[in-house]
């Protein structure tokens, strides 16, 4: 063991109550209904690296993002930040200060009634990193410069900026608490590609310069490939494949990872014909029994339909698949 992990998730599950309102349930005698958004998820993130979670809608990746900064409490399992339970870490301002978050929607993540300088200085004031007005002002200037804006932009309101500039403001705010761990929930999926490149480059630069650790959530495999050191592929609340990003992209093992990689239209394959995998994403309220992917899986057999696969090592990669475990994946 070299350096300890910044964030560690141990068998974390999270359930949402999706029952009807109490009165309606009483009259129709319906039981409570729970949605298992995150199911037995474990991972750890080493300092200065990027761990990415990728998956389609409803796979639970955004729920993990919120669990990782303490916006939700896990229903089961533990999350450790710097080897301390997350809830006790968050109770100490000195530790809470060291984690922050960047959001997907650059329009909803900035309070439209606040000036940019007030938005960026909120963490500075909350953690009393600086208190004198000119000190705060100077820090805001440094932060805005760090993300490619100027101190004069601080006087403006969010609606005066483009989507990419707003995401820069969002990053400046996240850096204001001087964190070393950032949770990035789809930070570029609302942006146009040329702007996405700006933001991804900025995030990589900042990581190098400040030694940041990222938990990077995305549905875009190409973006994840560009950013991730390690990667987890999620399907209906579970991580089905996890390991070094390079290894997974070179030789994907889990049938779902292969499907995802095959489904992405690629610039380098002009006019290619392909046979997409059929089937729909099942509802997370009623996931299929056994391996949740079996209805769409070309390798599924009877065992897959009844028995949930365990996470097993296959080379450098951890895979939850009976076919891989039995060597049926060819």
């Amino acid at each position: 063991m070299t350096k300890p992990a910044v964030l560690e998730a141990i068998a974390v599950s999270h359930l949402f109550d999706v029952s009807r309102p109490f009165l309606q349930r009483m009259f129709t005698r319906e039981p409570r209904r729970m949605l298992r958004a995150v199911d037995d998820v474990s991972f750890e993130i080493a300092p200065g690296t990027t761990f990415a979670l990728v998956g389609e809608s409803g796979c639970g990746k955004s729920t993990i993002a919120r669990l990782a900064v303490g916006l939700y409490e896990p229903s089961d399992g533990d999350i450790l930040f710097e080897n301390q339970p997350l809830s006790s870490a968050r109770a100490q301002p000195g530790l809470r200060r060291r984690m922050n978050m960047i959001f997907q929607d650059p329009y909803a993540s900035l309070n439209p009634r606040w000036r940019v300088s007030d938005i960026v200085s909120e963490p500075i004031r909350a953690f009393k990193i600086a208190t004198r007005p000119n000190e705060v002002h100077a820090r805001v200037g440094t932060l805005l410069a760090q993300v490619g804006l100027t101190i004069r932009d601080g006087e403006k309101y969010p609606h005066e900026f483009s989507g990419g500039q707003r995401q820069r403001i969002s990053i400046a705010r996240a850096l204001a608490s001087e964190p070393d761990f950032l949770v990035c929930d789809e930070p570029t999926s609302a942006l146009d590609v040329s702007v996405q490149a700006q933001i991804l480059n900025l995030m990589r630069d900042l990581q190098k310069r400040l030694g940041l650790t990222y938990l990077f959530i995305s549905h875009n495999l190409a973006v994840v490939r560009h950013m991730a050191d390690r990667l987890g592929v999620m399907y209906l609340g579970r991580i089905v494949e996890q390991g070094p990003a390079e290894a997974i992209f070179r030789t994907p093992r889990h049938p779902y990872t292969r499907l995802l990689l095959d489904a992405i239209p690629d610039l380098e394959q002009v006019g290619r014909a392909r046979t997409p995998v059929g089937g729909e994403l099942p509802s997370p309220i009623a996931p299929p029994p056994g391996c949740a992917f079996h209805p769409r899986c070309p390798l599924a057999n009877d065992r897959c339909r009844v028995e949930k696969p365990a996470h097993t090592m296959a080379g450098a990669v951890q895979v939850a698949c009976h076919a891989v475990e039995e060597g049926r994946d060819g």
Partner: protein
Amino acid sequence: MLTRAWNSDLAYNFRTSPVALASAALALILLIAAAFAPWLAPHNPMDVASLSLMDSFKPPLGMADADWSNPLGTDNQGRDVLSAIMYGMRISLLVGFLSVLFAIVVGIAIGLVAGYAGGITDTLLMRVADVQLTFPSILTALLVDGVISAALPHTMREALQIYVIIFAIGISLWPNFARTVRGSTLVERNKDYVMAARVIGVPSWRIMLSHVLPNVIGPVMVIGTLGLGLAIIAEATLSFLGVGLPPTQPSLGTLIRFGDDFLFSGEWWVTVFPGLTLILMVLAINLLGDWLRDALNPRLR
């Protein structure tokens, strides 16, 4: 700053809307007449010494025996109707403003807490609001007014009556504000800027006040304006029924009640002019409120 306000979309919308301009002008005239009544009114209707029964029931201009010293005629005690209306509007507007203000403060507080806390707190507070909304608001105001007046000692009743009325009308209006604020709060509290504040551990009360409140205040202004019309009518109704303000502080409603006795004996002006003023005032306020609602609603633009 001023030029920015002048060029804003709202100001532009206002400048180009004839209804908004006309109703704002009318409201402004009435407001000035009420606010500066002691300087503008031809007589002081509160000054009993200056009243003379010789002057009673003088008709308004346009009728025989009318003169310019009492353009809208006089009542049974020789009080100038125009002056009485101007002083009466002061009371009506004062009660209206203060009771709406009270309702806004209570409504925002309850709406924010219910919407932000959610769960059982939300359910309890909103069921109370629902129950109250099943009664007409004037009934609630009557009930509250009756209970408090009965509880107060006789000697204090007259002096405190205006506060009792403000409280009663305010209480009857708060659910409208609470429900609107709660609805907007439910939307805002799930937005990422609130999440960002929660991640760094900003306390809930501060998130509610500094983040959520500025973003839910728009609709409150709309209902506040429309509520002002309602409150003025509520006060007039209570006064007309005789449970409102004491005769020493006559509001428009009180004036209408006094004049009502003479409606069929020929002295119609004593009640019709205060009534018209009430209608114009509420109409102007409601038109302004409607305009504000449409102007702030992006879907109607």
